[in-house]
């Protein structure tokens, strides 16, 4: 008990600790003075030491001077020259030489698409940091914000982590606007909402909550909003940061937020009444609430024909069991339940184990850990060397170890099968849970045999049934059971039969199809 409390205290302590000491920009809420020299000086001071801070002064007429401020690299200089500097220089000729002119006159001269106004220092600074171009003019207490930002970015590419054979091949990029546009392109309706907020005291990362107004439940949207608002951190580098903050059960091995690179998957989930979260600089969108079965589905399931898809799903669930239990069953059988194997099989298993110096558990752990290491090594290494690892791994671990009598051949088969099985799941996060639980099951099997395996499964089931993601039961629609929603769980019903949205999230607007399959 004490350990629990201490752990809690430790974890609880950390958050406010960082926050109180955190770096923050504040105290810039005053308005601009209208004195160009003074204002410009103040801003320049704030950007002291920032080499990318650039500015240029332009005389408008005899009385007025303007200053253009921007961060080099975030602004498309060519466009800015064309749409801002060029018109301003020309304005010299158009505008009266000695007359008073207002900031609005200047605004009228510029040919940029997005020009807004702002009056406080904070706004000015925010705009500069976000890549805007700022135009200050003496005598004016408002500044012009011109959006000509543009920076180097990755183009839309095929999603690496969720490759499919059928279906769209575009994946999210690091640009949140592009990502938003990919969703908007798929849902041309005013019901699609994007709510914008900034997270991270230093990073000021843009985060967008997206949902379909008439389908998503208000309570869930509100919960997402409030959970996001409660995040107090200096910087958010990826949507993965947010996942840990908004999860219901951060200590659970099972992911309660779906991370996806695919806009079509986000849209599919929005249509089921779920809420998407887009994070700037991250190609991974988040989807909440999510169920276990959603994690087991691949977007491809919906593009292929339903019979084949149902079969693939069957295989997937079968190999879920394999990935979780195969090594533990092997251990249980070889150390406790020898009577279960057919006689000829027990001979060959016994013969192969004859020279092995370790008990089956140690042997299995050795191989499993080596396999995990190989997997990690393959990920980290530069691509050209990556294949070397797999060759060395297969040769050394697979063959040489067996020949040297360190591990037995059947175990290599078991570990290899388990390895293949663990690559089958569409969700990378879920794979992690299964991989860890596999070790947990190995320990259970090694101490208690099949009884232990059953106990382990029992513990996992209890945990899964108790787990919730944003208030939605993780195992829905199996627990709580809902017959109509089974159409998209182990099987996939044909599209013309899937006439209802999932009850847990789509209650407000259940009907999905207006008619049955047309007859021809």
């Amino acid at each position, binding site marked *: 008990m004490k350990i629990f409390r201490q752990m809690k205290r430790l974890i609880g302590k950390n958050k406010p600790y960082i926050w109180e000491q955190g770096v923050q920009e504040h105290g810039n809420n005053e308005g601009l003075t209208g004195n160009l020299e003074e204002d410009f000086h103040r801003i320049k001071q704030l950007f002291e030491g920032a080499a990318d801070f650039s500015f240029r002064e332009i005389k408008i007429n005899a009385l007025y001077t303007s200053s253009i401020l921007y961060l080099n690299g975030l602004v498309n200089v060519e466009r800015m020259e064309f749409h801002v500097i060029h018109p301003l220089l020309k304005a010299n000729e158009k505008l009266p030489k000695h007359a008073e002119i207002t900031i609005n006159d200047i605004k009228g001269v510029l040919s940029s698409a997005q020009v807004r106004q702002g009056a406080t220092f904070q706004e000015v600074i925010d705009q500069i940091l976000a890549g805007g171009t700022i135009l200050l003019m003496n005598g004016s207490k408002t500044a012009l914000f011109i959006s000509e930002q543009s920076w180097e970015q990755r183009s839309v590419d095929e999603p690496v982590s969720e490759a499919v054979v059928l279906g769209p091949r575009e994946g999210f990029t690091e640009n949140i606007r592009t990502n938003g546009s990919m969703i908007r392109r798929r849902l041309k309706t005013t019901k699609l909402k994007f709510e914008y907020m900034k997270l991270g005291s230093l990073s000021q990362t843009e985060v967008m909550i997206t949902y379909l107004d008439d389908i998503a439940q208000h309570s869930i949207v509100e919960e997402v909003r409030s959970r996001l608002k409660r995040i107090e951190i200096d910087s958010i580098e990826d949507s993965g940061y947010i996942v840990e903050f908004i999860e219901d059960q951060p200590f659970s091995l099972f992911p309660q937020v779906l991370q996806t690179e695919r806009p079509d998957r986000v849209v599919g989930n929005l249509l089921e009444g779920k809420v998407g979260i887009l994070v700037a600089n991250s190609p991974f969108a988040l989807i909440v609430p999510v169920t276990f079965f959603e994690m087991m589905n691949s977007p491809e399931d919906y593009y292929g024909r339903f019979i084949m898809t149902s079969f693939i799903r069957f295989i997937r669930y079968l190999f879920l069991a394999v990935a979780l239990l195969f090594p533990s069953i092997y251990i249980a059988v070889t*150390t*406790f339940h*020898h*009577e279960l194997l057919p*006689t000829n099989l*027990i001979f060959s298993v016994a013969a192969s*184990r004859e*020279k092995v110096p370790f008990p089956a558990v140690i042997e299995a752990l050795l191989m499993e850990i080596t396999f995990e290491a190989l997997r990690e090594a393959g990920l980290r290494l530069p691509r050209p060397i990556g294949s070397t690892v797999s060759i060395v791994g297969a040769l050394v671990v697979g063959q040489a170890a067996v020949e040297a009598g360190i591990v037995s051949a059947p175990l290599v088969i078991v570990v290899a099968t388990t390895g293949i099985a663990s690559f089958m799941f569409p969700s990378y996060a879920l794979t992690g849970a299964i991989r860890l639980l596999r070790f947990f099951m190995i320990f259970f099997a090694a*101490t208690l045999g099949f009884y232990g395996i059953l106990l382990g499964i029992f513990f996992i089931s209890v945990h899964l049934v108790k787990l919730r993601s944003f208030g939605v039961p993780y195992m829905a629609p199996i627990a709580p059971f809902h017959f109509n929603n089974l159409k998209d769980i182990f099987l996939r019903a044909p599209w013309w039969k899937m006439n209802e949205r999932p009850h847990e999230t789509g209650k407000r607007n259940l009907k999905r199809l207006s008619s049955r399959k047309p007859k021809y």
Partner: protein
Amino acid sequence: MKVMRMLLIWGITLIFLTGCWNRVEINDIAIVTAIGLDLVEDDQLRLTLQVAVPSKLVTGGTGESGGKSTIVISETGASVSEAYRNIQGKLSRRIFFSQSRVLLIGEDLAKKGVFHIVDFHTRYAEPRINSFIMFTKGKATKIINSMPKFESVSAEETRELAKMGVGFKIYVRDFLNMLLTDGIEPFASQFTLKPLEVDTKNKSGETQAVNGIAVFKGDKLVGWMDEGETRGLLWLRNEIKTGVITVNVPEEKGGGNISMEIVRGETNIVPILKQGELRLDVDVVTDLSVIENDSKLNLFETKVIEEIQTYAEEKISKRIEMIVEKAQKEYESDIFGFGQSVYKKYPKEWNTHYKENWENEFVQTKVTIHSKAFVRRIGLIK
């Protein structure tokens, strides 16, 4: 919440307190493939185990092969378990019975009674009750020691042979059932060693073979029946599945033989109790298909077919009559389960009268065979 958490932690601790239970690595067990039991001098039991040597069994992999793939090890004792403990003293690996599907018992021991053996086999958790029980004239050790011909272990061959359906498939649990049920006496297959080739001067090796059945009265062996008689028993027990009936055509019709395959056979035992007198009607219906004809008869004639049918009927009747007589007169053992069929039809009479006196009644009961045979197919050649 707190209480729940405490309970959970205690619960988990309890699970691990049990330790490693009966954990044995697969390479630390001696896999028994066959169990043999004999009677030796001084009324001692001799338990013979055929133990597989896995490294010799699987070729390739580890490289070393050759040498016998099994070892035979035996020890004596007053009971099966005592002998088993004595063998364990000679084996560096833990004796593991669960893979053994063969229980062979020698003649001498069977005559003395086998109840305690069946008891050990069913009461102790390890041995399978679905292992085959079989008896042998002479010593069981002889068959256990025989060299395998196809499989890597001779016990595997014994098991495959028992499964074939030539004789009876009697598991230990079937044997026990027959032993404990009133109105039926147990029997089991008889195994023996036979030369591979016959009527040649080649010195051929010996192989194990099913050779009829062993007949019991109570748990004691009373005698043997040969293969022909076993066929009769198969008929009576309604377990005939395959088989060939060869009928001789009388000389005046041209002589020769006609062989027919049994396609289907069905037997009904009908006990009839009239005025305190019990008799048994046995109805046998068979479908046959001609597979060999070296007589001069033309099978395309209906008359001829009818004639053959009567020959077949006679032949089947004779077979059954012969075995019934042998069981009634010679062994006085109701291996057919006649008593059971009486009990099923006349439970009251069985309980009041026959149950106690069945031993005497069985011997006196008149058994009539009504055999019906139909030739369904005669093949394609004229």
